[in-house]
């Protein structure tokens, strides 16, 4: 198993270089003129007639692509991710202050999604074609067809405009002022956790309340997806010879399902659960925009509208990094569950 993990770790840098290369190629294709725009903070700088040429030279925008890529990558590794027009601070700083909000949302969403989906998927499979199964499947199919921004807007309309139960944002008005107060200690930058650290149960509960609709929105699609995978995986496993062997041994049906079938059925589900976390994370772009939460999802959406290239690139890199690391964790946990993989 160690060899397997080492091999996966060795591929990691190549994947990351590949990702930066794709992203850089996209931004390079803008050409020197457009790229220059993202370096200039005020129109004053372009006043003198030869300023443009000079600045293009200065920032090395006329150099061949490999040179520029090398320089960009070097800066990236140094922590110089460019200046963010949206955040009015360096991109690295802007991302560091926003990422915890996104992580908080994804972490809260993932546990109910995975547990509920597995439970319902297994239930659906063992009641195959009965009413319960049909019902779960139809709901899942509708969930799978429901775009997250439509659901988000709908929930916002229902619970905010109609019922006035909870509004957009991450905390209620007033609490945000307490949180930006110098006396407020930021440890994790995740609202619910920091609220507990600061001993403000009211803010903690308020933060949770504001998380409910975003979580519902973000998780509905993945919940449906995961359920379908669990169901079909479970159905396939229930047809296997070793299930018949277990029954022939006199194993009670409950144990057959919970011990012999479920563990095997969960092998593909683990992979997909990993994908779910990743999917949840990229779903944050939409959900944070709809519910006005200042994570990096909303950040990249704002940056895209302002053509703030360095912010977009920075956020895209973070998303990719999370995805790649997430995949790695999934592969390793896969090896833990399935003894057959450890040998390879």
């Amino acid at each position, binding site marked *: 198993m160690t060899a397997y993990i080492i091999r996966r770790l060795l591929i990691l840098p190549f994947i990351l270089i590949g990702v930066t290369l794709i*992203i850089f190629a*996209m931004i390079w294709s803008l050409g020197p003129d457009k790229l220059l725009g993202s370096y200039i903070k005020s129109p004053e700088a372009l006043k003198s007639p030869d300023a443009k040429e000079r600045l293009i030279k200065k920032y090395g925008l006329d150099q061949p692509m490999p040179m520029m890529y090398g320089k960009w990558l070097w800066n990236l590794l140094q922590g110089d991710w460019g200046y963010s027009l949206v955040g009015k601070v360096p991109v690295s700083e802007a991302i560091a202050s926003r990422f915890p909000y996104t992580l908080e949302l994804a972490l809260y969403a993932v546990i109910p999604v995975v547990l509920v989906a597995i439970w319902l998927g297994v239930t659906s499979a063992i009641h195959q074609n009965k009413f319960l199964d049909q019902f779960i499947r139809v709901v899942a*199919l509708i969930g799978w*067809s429901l775009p997250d921004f439509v659901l988000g807007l709908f929930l916002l309309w229902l619970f*905010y*405009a109609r019922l006035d139960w909870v509004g957009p944002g991450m905390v209620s008005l007033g609490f945000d002022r307490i949180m930006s107060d110098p006396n407020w200690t930021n440890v994790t930058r995740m609202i619910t956790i920091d609220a507990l650290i600061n001993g403000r149960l009211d803010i903690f509960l308020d933060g949770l309340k504001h998380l409910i609709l975003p979580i519902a929105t973000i998780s509905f699609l993945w919940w449906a997806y995961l359920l379908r995978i669990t169901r079909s995986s479970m*159905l396939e496993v229930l047809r296997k010879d070793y299930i018949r062997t277990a029954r022939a041994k006199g194993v009670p049906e409950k144990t057959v399902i919970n011990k012999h079938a479920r563990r095997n059925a969960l092998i593909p589900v683990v992979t997909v659960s990993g994908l779910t976390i990743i999917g949840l994370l990229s779903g944050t772009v939409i959900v944070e925009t709809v519910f006005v939460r200042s994570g990096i999802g909303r950040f990249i959406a704002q940056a895209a509208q302002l053509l703030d290239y360095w912010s977009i690139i920075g956020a*895209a890199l973070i998303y990719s990094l999370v*995805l790649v690391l997430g995949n790695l964790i999934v592969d390793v946990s896969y090896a833990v569950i399935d003894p057959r993989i450890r040998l390879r």
Partner: protein
Amino acid sequence: MAERKRKSDLRKMMKKFWTNPTAVMGAILLFFFIGVAIFAPQIAGVNEFGDNYQIPRVSWSSSPQPPDAEHPFGVIGGRDVFYGVIWGTRTAFRLGLIVGLSATFIGVVVGSIAAYFGGIIDEILMRITDIFLSIPFLVAAMVLTTIMGKGLNNVMIALIAFGWMSSARLIRGNILQAREEQYVLAAKALGQKDGLIIIKHILPNTIFPVVVQLTMRMGNYVITAAALSFLGVGAEPGYADWGTILSYARNWMTMLDQAWFSIVFPGIAMVLFVLAWNLVGDALRDIFDPRMRT
């Protein structure tokens, strides 16, 4: 013999499809949307001032107008929602089919090459596939459309550029598996060329899962495109596209009570459209994959 068998299998599959209630529901929905797309000019009229895919302005006031007799789905941003939803059906089909077919085509080519040549070429192509899969789809499409600029064509290019990988992986895996099958070994023993074997024997038997995947992803492409429009980096404002209408609602986020119709009508259209493809895809998968049959 094999040819005839395949044909009778196909007939059997068609029979299974039409006796499956969810499949029939999906097909009916799909035909409904096709009808709406074809008769869009008759249903919603045309834009007398220019491009039909531009929703005509009916008002210069920015405040939303709730549905009435003249504008059954209301007006938002000065645009008639009904017109946008109807003509948006055409946009959805155009986008879904172009993106779906192109991405699948690229995927099939890449996957077949990888499986056919194997070795180092396979390794390189699959690592490239991995790299493309390492950027979240929506984020990657956002970066590309931001850089290329707004417009439906750019959206389609971005979706194709980052949408081909799953078909590549699928077809590669299927070909590698099918290569070991008896009929392929037999063809090899008869001295048929590898390329011919892939086209004649392997592809027809491995393409079904790809077709299923294409159907299931069709809705996904439309949703992602709409999401891009919603985020303001997709189609131009005023374009007859469901996501564009929804994006108008963003300005009324805190007063959604006044703009509900700009969410509900395009939202319903989108959900039903995606549901139709998913129902059909789901049924096709059950039919093609006998292990999944219930």
